[in-house]
């Protein structure tokens, strides 16, 4: 089956939370085959490579197969945390969107939910 490199946004959704200077970002697949892909390919190193620039020193990865979800705990990524960060987004609430765009994976059409605008990428010209 044809694969296209696309942001993980095509096959998963995410939410970021904060505790002190630690961000946690969930990555939840819409479909079972999307879960297999993220579970196989999205490592701690991959997440660290995206968030290192924001100060991350360590990433912990947790699997929740029942929920088709990964949870990443990203240490020291919030510029000191909500009470001392100089960033506009002190909680790092938008970091979930950053992950959904920056993490690019080889995606097949059947991992994408119906009606998603990403399906247009697979229309043969």
């Amino acid at each position, binding site marked *: 089956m044809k694969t296209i490199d696309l942001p993980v*946004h095509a096959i998963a*959704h*995410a*939410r970021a*939370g*904060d*505790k*002190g*200077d*630690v961000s*946690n970002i*969930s990555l*939840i697949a*819409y479909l079972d085959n999307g879960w297999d892909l993220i579970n196989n390919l999205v490592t701690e190193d991959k997440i660290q490579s995206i968030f290192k*620039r*924001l100060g991350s020193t360590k990433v*912990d990865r*947790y*699997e*929740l197969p*029942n*929920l*088709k*979800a990964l*949870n990443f*705990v990203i240490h020291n990524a919030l*510029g000191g*945390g*909500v*009470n*001392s960060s*100089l*960033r*506009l*987004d002190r909680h790092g609430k*938008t*970091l979930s969107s*950053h992950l959904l*765009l*920056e993490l690019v994976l080889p995606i097949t059409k059947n991992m994408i939910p119906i009606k*998603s*605008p990403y399906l247009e990428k697979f229309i043969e010209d």
Partner: protein
Amino acid sequence: MSKKVYIGCGAGFAGDRFDASIPIVKQLSKINAPKYLMFEVLAERTLALAQQLRTKNSEEGYSPFLDSYITPILSDCLENNIKIISNIGAANPMGAAKRIFEIAEKQKIKKPKIGVVIGDDLLAYMSDSEILESPTMEGLDFSNNKITAANVYLGAKPIADALEKGADIVVVGRSVDSALALGPLIYEYKWKENDLDLMAAGTICGHLLECGAQVTGAYFADPGYKDVPDLAYVGFPIAEVHEDGTFVITKPDGTGGLVNEATVTEQLLYETHDPSSYLVPDVTADMTSLVLENDGINRILVKGAKGNTPPKQLKATICCDNGFMGEAEMSYAGPNALARARLAGEIIDQRIQKLGIQGPMRIEIIGGGSVHYSLDETASYELPNNGDYRVRASAIYPHKKQAQQMIDEVTSLYCSGPSAGGGARSYVTPQSSTASILVDRSIVNPQIEVKIL
């Protein structure tokens, strides 16, 4: 049909929609079963501010939003036997109870029985040095700063005790948010504290409720990809909890929003670290065994919670004053706007260096990837040079005057900066820093008191 306990959540943070609880109260009023309405309105910073208010005036220090949340629903809740559970007490739960009595009197309704939980305020029974000597989990070295608040997270037991003593309303200060739901469940079902799977189920239920509409389709919409109907009138959550700890998350009829596996999973992992070890005073909850099932439209059944032994020590948050933050912004739009915004940022940087104020500072371009990049970084995606950009400078300094000097440098770009800057806004706000410490239960437990007023 077996008994169910209904728990609605009318607020997920200090400042959440004040009218959100009205549809919940309307729905619960039609049901003949034990029913509760929780309000979670206490952030870490809120407590430090509340503590300052109480120091100035001993009557104050409860949530500044108490009137806005309680006034619209107090009479309907009392009339329909919906019990209210909230951390609206902040730094002064007794003061909050007194204020609720005043609201009841003004509304000419019968005086409610209010349970007040005391004992979370460590400053009441530990010295500053005892607090600072406690093991630190995370955060700053506080040794040079005066502690403005120190509160330990209490569990669900005191809330259950208050209900046992006949309270219509339970007011707490700092407790874990999920206890606002677990407390009523312990009371209604006589759950034993050593039945850890049930403690975990009630905790996870509370965790899903505690951020209000974040589990019912709010904080979720991504138009075209994840659509949510009628978000302007999103329904806040109601949990229907069975005696065996399984529960359904749903929302009031006729409201906007969405409850499905995706909305519930996002909220489940929100602010969670190791999902097999979610720590609260009552239990170490394990979410990895959870199963979510569709139970009809906008209904998700949650089952399979597992619990392990609770942590030995309790977590407390301490706050101290930490200088002043200056923030200032200026917009550039149209042709070559990105270059002009960047030039403005460079000018601010040079001017602050010349002033010689020492302290951490950040300059970023709003519209140019500001939340993920700073001025000296390039976004991974291409930014058009023509556009609508806003330079933002922020810094934290020990003195208010220094923060003011910094923001003045941004405002001065009106006449002394690049071409066509507009819409300057600037703010100076006092900063409070926090750290988390661990406190022995043997210090806290004797101080916990449940008063019925």
